[in-house]
């Protein structure tokens, strides 16, 4: 039986008095490629921000390898965060730094490698995402797909055991999107990392996800949990089957 790497426990999220999602309870197993799904505006990115500790929950907790994140001290949280790699929807690369400097930053801060060793590691990480040779380019000088891959190179700089992706395929053409999917699977298989992804790109979900949760915007809670292929064919929630089969509910739902 797989071990729970991340546990979301009775999580309720709100912006002020506006409830986003309530009573979320699910586990993400070690080595999973886990997808957080749901219609636009249901709170997927908000859940990710809670998982990253960028927002505090209204109630509940999230644990990493059995250690609670929100009750941990600042130092403990920093240690936990060093085991994470994150790529944001817009990449989140530092625009004032070159790609090499972006990848180098976590290495510089958290390792004792010499400058020459760091340069080798940067070249290796960039090569993994197909960007070796672009060390001296600034994020504004490369395409959107390359920026996402460069962000991935920075995310894996410290060999993290959890990789988070916020809408990795957003704004990418189908080929770049599929290449990124392939890259995520290869990295997961070679490092054994747990991958958590927020997306509603169905081809990506069916190509790589091993487990998923569906957040519903109307009932404001999770209404499905499991392998997305199984959910598509057998979920007892019509909206989940509809979402995964890309069927429009006529009329356009108010929640979207």
């Amino acid at each position: 039986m797989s071990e729970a790497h991340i546990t979301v426990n009775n999580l309720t999220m709100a912006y002020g008095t506006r409830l986003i999602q309530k009573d979320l309870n699910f586990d993400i197993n070690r080595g999973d490629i886990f997808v957080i799904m749901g219609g636009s505006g249901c709170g997927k990115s908000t859940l990710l921000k809670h998982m990253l500790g960028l927002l505090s929950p209204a109630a509940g907790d999230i644990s990493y390898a059995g250690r609670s994140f929100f009750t941990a001290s600042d130092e403990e949280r920093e240690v936990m965060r060093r085991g994470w790699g994150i790529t944001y929807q817009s990449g989140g690369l530092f625009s004032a730094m070159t790609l090499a400097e972006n990848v180098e930053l976590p290495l510089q801060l958290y390792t004792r490698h010499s400058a020459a060793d760091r340069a080798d590691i940067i070249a290796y990480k960039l090569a993994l995402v197909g960007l070796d040779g672009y060390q001296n380019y600034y994020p504004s000088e490369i395409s959107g797909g390359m920026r996402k891959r460069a962000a991935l190179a920075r995310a894996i700089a410290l060999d993290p055991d959890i990789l988070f992706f916020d809408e990795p395929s957003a704004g990418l053409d189908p080929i770049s999107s599929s290449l990124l999917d392939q890259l995520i699977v290869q990295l997961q298989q070679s490092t054994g990392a747990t991958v958590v992804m927020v997306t509603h790109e169905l081809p990506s979900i069916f190509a790589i996800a091993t487990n998923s949760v569906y957040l519903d915007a109307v009932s404001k809670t999770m209404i499905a949990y499991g392998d997305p292929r199984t959910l598509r064919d057998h979920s007892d929630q019509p909206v989940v089957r509809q979402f995964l089969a890309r069927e429009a509910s006529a009329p356009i739902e108010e929640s979207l």
Partner: protein
Amino acid sequence: MKTMTPQPPGFDLLTDDRDSAVLVISGDWVQGNTHRDFQILKEDLCCITAKELVVDGESLGDWDSVLMAFLLQCYNQCRDDNIRFATRNFPASAKQLLDVASAVPPHEPGASPALPWYQSMDPGHLLREVRDAAVGSLDFLGELGIALARLVTGKATTRFSDFRNFCYQAGPDAFAIISLTSILVGMILAYLGAVQLQQFGAGIYVADLVVIGMLREMGALMTAVVMAGRTGAAYAAQLGTMQTNEEIDAITTMGISPMEFLVVPRILALLVMMPLLTLYANLLGMVGGGIVAGGMGITPLMYIAQGESAISMAHLSVGLVKSVIFGMLIAVAGCRSGINSGRSSAAVGQAATEAVVTAVVYLIVADAAINIIFQQLNI
């Protein structure tokens, strides 16, 4: 059905039948043709007792969104009044568009987050805003204090290369604009003083006025005002854009404190550069005063000799102390606005504006307070 000459749009409400009212639409309902106001119909609809409204498009000519907007209003009104709504003799495409537009009921707005202007002038609301701003500022200063303490103990993740770059941006890069403003301020001071002093035959004392005015007051203040508009706004815009691009999120989740990594090097750079720029501004201001004095027949030698006698460590120190405090205020106002900025381009603009306005207000208040303190201390 298209007509050759546009017919004015019209409608006629027939209420002969007790159960069903008929609204006959006629003419060309197109943009640019005379618009029919729904309000006229709304008043008539209020009076009908029928349980159904049938809208008849038999006499409809050309149509576009003008007709659809009108029909949607009718539909919504009927729904609100519990009257059944039906259409007949309309083109299929118009019916389809109405089905799409009416599929989702209009969203009922909840409590509006933006207060109406009269409520935002409410003293209680204003006091709460001031309190929140004060708490926010104290919070920021507390975090900054912790970051600076970590820097002193060597634990901070502040990069020297960033500090060096910001020093360059806040120092040598600002030379041109500081040169221009300082020379002009010196000249203005000299003109103002000369007109008055010459009446008493004391024109030579223009040198004292310019030297003391620049050293104690104008050198630091004018440099600060220029730096607030130039560097303070730039800090707010840079950090605001980083917020929009999720760069600050990336920094936070890397376990790096944005305060140590982004704010501390900016604040330190301005703290170091402000006194140096003020010294430079003092010098150029005195040169500017000398140019005007020269025009009034005071020789450069006389101006320098007289000015030299007016220079004292006390005057110089007052200006330098002010410059350090001003530098801190500008950097704090800029960085705080940037870090707290929203995630849109409009929010970044707002943050930059807020940074400049806050900094200028801080500068004037601080300058007044420092002058009073120094006067009380006889410095």
